[in-house]
């Protein structure tokens, strides 16, 4: 069994409630931080831990925290990003609904470290029931003196609020999130300035993912060095992986960074192998935005080394033969999967979720979806495949926020690794139409 830091007590009955959580060592990090540490010391531990942001980009958390501007007399904010909308990602929901107090505890300890006296958890509208679980946990934390004025008799005070969003993927982008939190339309801001300088209400702000903030709890409890000792190289600690698709045991797994991808897919501890004994065809390893890899490249790198579940190993080979750990949304596809159809589903999503501020993403996402639809409909041409390639290239890197890249990468990787499937579709539309999957797409498209 791998080491578990966040889900260690997941099996404990009643762990959702304050009493049980507290009995199992809950809120120790708050006590330790407030009673025995200076805020800078907490930041130092987080730096030592090597923790990297779990929201997708993998930016070192300690470094992000130390960038936070601290002008005199200006409020600072910590905002937790619980918008979790990346297709294939559902780890934050699991953690928040099973062990809500670990997030509350992490928020208090992290807010203390950053000197924030008001903090927010921004959660997507579709997670309304989770928001209610969090509200209850927050009420319990207030009732037990972990939130509010003068926590544990210190001069540190903190108010924590949950804000439910309207339900938009783009509101997970940190500056769109801040706009939305301010009550405006959720459009990403043009950077600079970055949130660390001018974030919520123009004040210095840190935005972190749910899992990132929860990881601060074991880091403060056991020390940054202990956390850094887990995992591999610059991918320290544990990571929650949302495993879905054609596997025997879909679900959320906490893994030690550095286990092999093969082990993750096939061992009984994790995914338990491919459903119905079928063959593995492809994996989207880090949520819909990251490049899809065919079976051979996800199991071993282009150099023939075993691929590991870590930031570095998954990225090995760049986009030519590698991918990204991303948010840890691990989507497994077996040999029956139609890659073009899968890509169309993703493209439809990005088209639907583009905020529409910048022209390449606003127009390009819709265009790519239409072309994919055309190909699936049996009317595509070989030029259409080249055009798709061209469009994604013109979007990537040219937009305000990374949603443009996120829309481009799946298209690029599908064509890079599965071009033959597109060509088959184009050359033999009738043959493809007989595939049963095609029927399901038809229904989706017209629905």
């Amino acid at each position, binding site marked *: 069994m791998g080491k578990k830091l966040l889900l260690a007590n997941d099996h404990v009955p009643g762990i959702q409630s304050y009493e049980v959580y507290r009995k199992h060592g809950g809120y120790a990090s708050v006590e330790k931080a407030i009673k025995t540490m200076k805020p800078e010391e907490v930041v130092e531990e987080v730096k030592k831990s090597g923790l990297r942001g779990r929201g997708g980009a993998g930016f070192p958390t300690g470094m992000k925290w130390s960038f936070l501007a601290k002008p005199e007399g200006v409020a600072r904010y910590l905002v937790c990003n619980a918008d979790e909308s990346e297709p294939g990602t559902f780890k934050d929901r699991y953690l928040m609904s099973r062990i809500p107090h670990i997030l509350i505890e992490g928020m208090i300890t992290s807010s203390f470290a950053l000197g924030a006296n008001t903090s927010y958890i921004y959660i997507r509208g579709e997670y309304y029931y989770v928001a209610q679980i969090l509200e209850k946990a927050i009420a319990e934390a207030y009732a037990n003196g972990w939130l509010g004025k003068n926590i544990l008799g210190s001069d540190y005070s903190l108010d924590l609020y949950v804000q439910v969003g309207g339900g*938009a993927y783009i509101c997970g982008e940190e500056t769109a999130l801040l*706009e939305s939190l301010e009550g405006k339309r959720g459009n990403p801001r043009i950077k600079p300035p970055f949130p660390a300088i001018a974030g919520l209400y123009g004040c210095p702000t840190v935005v972190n993912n749910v899992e990132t903030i929860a990881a601060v709890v074991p880091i403060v409890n056991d020390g940054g060095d202990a956390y850094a000792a887990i995992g591999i190289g610059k991918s320290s600690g544990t990571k929650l992986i949302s495993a879905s698709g054609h596997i025997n045991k879909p679900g959320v797994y906490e893994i030690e960074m550095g286990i092999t991808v093969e082990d993750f897919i096939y061992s009984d501890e994790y995914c338990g192998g491919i459903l119905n004994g079928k063959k593995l065809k492809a994996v989207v390893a880090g949520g819909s935005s990251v490049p899809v890899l065919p079976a051979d490249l996800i199991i071993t790198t282009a150099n023939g080394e075993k691929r590991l579940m870590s930031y570095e190993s998954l990225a090995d080979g760049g986009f030519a033969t590698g991918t990204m750990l991303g948010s840890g949304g691990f989507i497994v596809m077996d040999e029956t999967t139609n890659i073009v159809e899968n890509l169309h589903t993703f493209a439809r999503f990005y088209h639907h979720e583009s905020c529409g*501020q910048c022209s390449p993403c606003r*127009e390009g*996402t819709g265009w790519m979806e239409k072309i994919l639809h055309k190909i699936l409909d049996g009317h595509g041409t070989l030029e259409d495949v080249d055009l798709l390639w061209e469009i994604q290239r013109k979007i990537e*890197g040219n*937009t305000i926020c990374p949603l443009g890249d996120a829309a481009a990468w799946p298209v690029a990787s599908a064509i890079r690794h599965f071009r033959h499937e597109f060509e088959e579709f184009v050359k033999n539309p009738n043959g493809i139409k007989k595939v049963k999957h095609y029927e399901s797409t038809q229904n989706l498209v017209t629905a």
Partner: protein
Amino acid sequence: MAKVTIDGKTIEVADGTTILQAARMIGPDVAPPTMCYYSKLKTSGGYCRTCLVEVSKGSEKDPRPMPKLVASCRTTVMDGMEVKNNDSEKVTEARKGVVEFLLLNHPLDCPVCDQAGECHLQDLSYEHGSAKTRTDFERRTFEKIDIGPYVQLHMNRCILCYRCVKVANQITDGRVHGVINRGDHSEISTYVEEAIDNDFSGNVIDVCPVGALTDKTFRFKSRVWFTKPVDAHRNCDKCSGKVVLWYKGEDVLRVTGRKDQWGEVEEFICNTCRFETKKTSDWTIEGPRKLDNHSVISANHYEFLKKPKELTINTVKPLAIEGGNN
């Protein structure tokens, strides 16, 4: 002060100047095209991506090139920065892409559009686009909307530059105008059609780079290139009263603000001057308007046309970039 080199031409500018402003100071040869930036509107720019440039050297201190193309209207210069605009193949490529995206859902109804001849999208496509379209999908369509008695919104033509939204936010009272929906379904809306009712609402027409917001009092009266622009002023208690009258024969067909070589109005004017003062006797005539901007309308109709190359360094003092979106 910061020294910046754009397409091989060097200029020294104040700290905080954007690449675009510096390029405009050097002159139109090196100035990237803009569809959303408007120096008189705070927080404008960043949306259309036509002004993307390549930063081949970040600064004297940190000479590394920037990894991506950057929006020149939203990126401030650093001392020693080197920028490629026309000299960069990457920029030419990306810009061509942007033009294609902007035209993807555009109705291309120039023959019946009042903006034709002074449309920035026409100019942009002509200079940076390609002659052929690669899409045969149906374009998105919207119903035309009357925004009050004077302005019509033709959403099909909108490129979502957000300029009119910023005009509504910044120079008219109260927020009445914004963007609803998302992605390529986004639409400019007043929420309530009648809601733009304000002394300065007509300025949305002048800032609109395309024919999405047009002057209803000028609708279908004439192609702009058949009208003659004349500078004129009047005593106005609401605005400077400095305008351009567009004549056909003896009749003033329309009144607009005075636009500089970048297509931006020098000053915003009020609705009384724009819509309700259309007799020659209302105005003191100054003389023919020189059209500096390089555009279809200035192609060969006016003998006093200057070619962009001969223009002197521009002296506009644009607003500083500020944070936030609105």
